[in-house]
């Protein structure tokens, strides 16, 4: 992978190379260079297949990380290209014209993370969460407990005891 990285850095301002396995590595690229890098990888370096497109919510740092996982079938190796986006408002250029399958991933990311991909086919249509109007659920500030409380009625009769309090009642109830 180091050979590939050395070639790429001549043309692209890449971050450090993270080699996870001999056949899997990651690089970070500024969003402005993503499209040209993907094209270069596809047309010059044999990374013809988009394996997946996914996101990570770095809530504390205030950004999303997109990972475009590219596969070179002949060389049997994968390169993950990472892009950091501002978290709010989160928007990214679409690549559906490079790989039509990207539209599906982008529609999923729109729904689960609230990241917009203007121009991507059907990007605003419901993907699997029909009629979802809340914070996108894969955002880390989505409060699962609040959601559960609002959506699922608590079962009657549920009650819990604090272990330390319960032990006091059982073992030394009189003492202050």
């Amino acid at each position, binding site marked *: 992978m180091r050979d590939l990285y050395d070639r790429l850095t001549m043309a692209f301002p890449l971050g450090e190379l993270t080699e996870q396995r001999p056949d899997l590595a990651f690089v970070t690229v500024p969003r402005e260079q993503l499209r040209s890098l993907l094209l270069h990888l596809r047309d010059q370096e044999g990374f013809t297949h988009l394996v997946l497109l996914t996101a990570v919510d770095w809530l504390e740092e205030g950004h999303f990380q997109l990972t475009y996982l590219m596969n070179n079938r002949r060389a049997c190796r994968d390169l993950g290209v990472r892009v950091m986006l501002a978290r709010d408002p989160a928007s990214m250029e679409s690549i559906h014209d490079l790989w039509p399958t990207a539209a599906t991933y982008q529609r999923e990311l729109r729904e689960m993370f609230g990241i917009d991909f203007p121009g991507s086919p059907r990007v605003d249509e419901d993907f699997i969460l029909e009629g979802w109007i809340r914070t996108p659920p894969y955002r880390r500030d989505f409060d*699962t*407990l609040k959601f*559960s*409380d609002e959506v*699922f009625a608590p*079962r009657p*009769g*549920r*009650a*819990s*005891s*604090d*272990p*330390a*309090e*319960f*032990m*006091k009642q*059982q*073992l*030394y109830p009189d*003492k*202050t």
Partner: protein
Amino acid sequence: MSLSDVLSPFSAWKNLFRDPVTIPDPLNDRPGAPRYRGFHQNDVDKCIGCGTCEAICQNAAIDMVAVAEIATKQGDSGLRPRIDYGRCCWCALCVDVCMTSSLSMSNEYKWVDHDPDAFCFIPGVDLKHWDSAELGYRRPEGHRLTGTERVPMGELEPEARADSFVEIVAGYDIEQAKLEADRCVSCGLCVATCPTHMAVPEYIATIRDGDYEQGVRLLYQTNPFSNVCGRVCTHRCETSCAARHEGDAIAIRWLKRHIIDQVPHDRIKQIAAEGRVSEPSRHQVAIIGAGPAGLTAAFDLAKAGHGVTVFEALPAPGGMMRYGIPEYRLPYDKLDEDVDVIRSMGVEIRCNTQVGKDVSIDQLREQHDTVLLAIGLHQGRSTRIPGSEHQDVVSAVELLRRITFGERFDVPTTVAVIGGGNVAMDIARSLARMQRQQHGQVGVTLVALEAEDLMLADREEIDEAREEGVVILPSRGPRRCLIERDAVAGLETVHCVSVFDDQGRFAPNYDDSDIQIHDAGLIVEAIGQAADHALLGESLTEALEWERNRIRIDADGRTSESWLWAAGDAVQGPDVITAVAAGHRIAASMMEAFAGTSAQTH
């Protein structure tokens, strides 16, 4: 058209004789993957009801509920998790965090019921057919959300400490303490085990938050001896710690010490005084003995506005904390700080004042509304073996007292210590230090009746004593002190086969064929202590109810005399923290007795 084109369709027919790849009965015959996160299993005997699963659950799917057949006991709340499958999202964080690995998930995932309440169940208690499933999600090896190893404590190396009384333990710095505090899951199982029920999870949380003043505030709610207990507490809380099941218990004692070490003494005084009743004292209380029991009661009573006078026979307050515990474990200035806070509450401590000699107990009774007897155990017991009446056969408590007095006495080059408890270790290690100072080498032999693994002293005391050069011989009973030309020359011991009989009574069994003689110019007996009740006088001794050789007290610490309470080692051992707990109880009981009565006018 070739021949193969004609025959190839028939080659598919060979599959007729193979097993089908489809599942014949897909509704019933389709097990989950080996590590599938299916329905929960809980080994309820392993579970300690710490509630960490409930705390981590993102959807509040878990309740901790009482279970009829499981009793609450030390280290086990008796509660067990009940899971609401209307809420569970199968994330398995409850399994990952479980402190005992009792909770897991089977690979079973099909459950149909018409009653929605059936899906709220207590795994392991409400029996299910997947309870014994072998497959399913278990926490992977090495995958732990809480740290398993205690942050090591800095200690002086044996070479650096063996000839000095400088404190051995360094105490955690802020970074170390935060790391250690981070391991605590705040379950609170330890609180019941602490005799005075300190707010352990809450004060540990103040370390994480860096709010040490709040930490001190919490410590003082239950314990005015945090400098002392942060160093020498028997820390039984740590035996109930949830972390000890799959790792080291949280260093609760060291964290307590860390809090008190961080806040300046004057600020501690201000915090301890918060909530102090400022009206002039109403009732007058006399307390005999300035040890942990007496001074804790004094602190509570004075803080509540009562007049408290403590009568102490020895030159300085602290009792066994000063005159028993060696300085290398508890520096005197740290004890002084705790006592100073108590004094600042308005407690008067009269040292060098022996009740029964300088003032009579009848006088105390006349001049005060109530009296607390907290005299401790300051008389050493003797083995009464032949030769033990010689003047160079002495008790450990007496010798420890003389060391605290600062007496410079000559320690012979060889010493024998009889006893295997912490007091024996204290005197052996103290004399070893003095020998090293005076002679440049150690010659202390300690003989204990118990076998190595049954010795009463803390393991670290035994190990550290050995590191400092003390020779410890377990399973040896003392037979006689050898006296040559009026001087102690040695101790004769015999192999002890067993200490207790079948009924658990103390009845040592010796092997007379195995006798050893240990050179000793001084023999120290450390086999237990007794209280000196002479101060009571004859009529009070007669009037009081006794339980063997202890004064009988009720749960509040009241004796059979309505004006007299008793607490501490003399009535109820064995340690500082138990005495502190008793002190609080006595103060509460006295104030209850004061309620509705007018104070005596003095």
